[in-house]
């Protein structure tokens, strides 16, 4: 049997983060690194970083993940959403410090929300994660494309319009439609 395969099947990032927080577990960190670092690197490159720079930014993201592991609350966010938010903040901080066109948002910790610390909320988050994924799979290509350009590539709506050669209003309405669909599906959960 291939142990590596078993590990992949059981890849449970939320548990890995919890293990890092509880025991500074380096193995758990290595597993997180193996999955997320190359994807964060891809995200940073889409956001305009060179391959070398993106490598550094992925390192920075995983380093922050290590430091902040204690703040991860599986009742509030899925692991991927949490890593995404850290990576986004890294890209924003760096772009800001190095002064690309505009200045951007300061990194900040998400405030805790006590009333979300219920066990049912864990289920809800896991369900939400699945629903987000399955709903995104049903979105028309034109919608998923603008969503990806906005959330992953970090482009402004006007930049997306220019890139795709479509009116700004069309970009906004596609994003609105996609988010509306997600909201409708997620609303069924509550």
């Amino acid at each position, binding site marked *: 049997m291939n142990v590596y395969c078993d590990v992949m099947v059981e890849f449970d990032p939320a548990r890995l983060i919890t293990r890092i927080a509880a025991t500074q577990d380096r193995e758990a960190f290595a597993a997180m690194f193996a999955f997320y670092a190359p994807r964060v690197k891809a995200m940073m490159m889409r956001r305009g970083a060179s391959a070398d720079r993106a490598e550094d930014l992925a390192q920075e993201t995983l380093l922050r993940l290590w*430091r902040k592991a204690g703040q991860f609350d599986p009742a509030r966010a899925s692991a991927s959403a949490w890593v995404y938010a850290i990576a986004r903040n890294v890209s924003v901080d760096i772009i800001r410090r190095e002064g690309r066109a505009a200045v951007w948002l300061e990194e900040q910790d998400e405030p805790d929300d006590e009333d979300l610390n219920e066990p049912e909320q864990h289920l809800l988050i896991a369900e939400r994660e699945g629903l987000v994924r399955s709903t995104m799979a049903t979105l028309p290509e034109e919608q998923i494309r603008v969503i990806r350009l906005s959330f992953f590539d970090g482009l402004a709506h006007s930049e997306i319009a220019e890139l795709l050669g479509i009116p700004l209003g069309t970009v906004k309405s596609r994003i609105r439609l996609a988010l509306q669909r997600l909201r409708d599906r997620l609303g069924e959960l509550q």
Partner: protein
Amino acid sequence: MNDHITHHPSEETLALYAAGTLDQARALIVSMHLARCPACREEVARFEAVGGALLEQAPAVAMKADALEVALRLIENERVLPADTAQADPLDDYALGPWRWVGPGVRQRSVSVPEADGIKVFMLKAAPGTRLPHHKHSGYEWTCVLEGAFEHAFGRYGPGDFDEADETMEHKPTVCEGEPCICIVALQGNIRLQSRLGRLLQPLIRL
């Protein structure tokens, strides 16, 4: 307090915030609202879940061969920080200037967001009953109320309320009776006063 928030950022604004594509000035005003509004934090979390799903599905770009070694060395001397339950104030990262007089009953202090594209961030403190001059904007004006309240044609804005105005809107805000109103504002371009008197006063009101 949260129950009283009736004016929220638009869905588009929260989506841009979650994507990290708002300029720093506007992002700060949004984060001031988020610190006071669990409903909008939940909305941002939903959008971050979209980002998370995209991240998971992203084609991986291989890291360098020694990347994990580098990472393990980086964390070697780094402690995992304890869970911090205290709510961080987004303003902690900025220096605030002294309050200075800008007009009758109105004081202003700067917030050290680097000025870019003609956008500035400041706090305003206005005495109860103050009528701010009827004005138009040449760009956007985003406001989050921190204390007290004001009202204009679109309603009453109390603590935590978010006012997203752009160049299409005319404003004639009045500070509600009771306590002084303190707001944080991101302003792009200039404010254009609408009355003749206002235009005479414009040089005095140094916004």
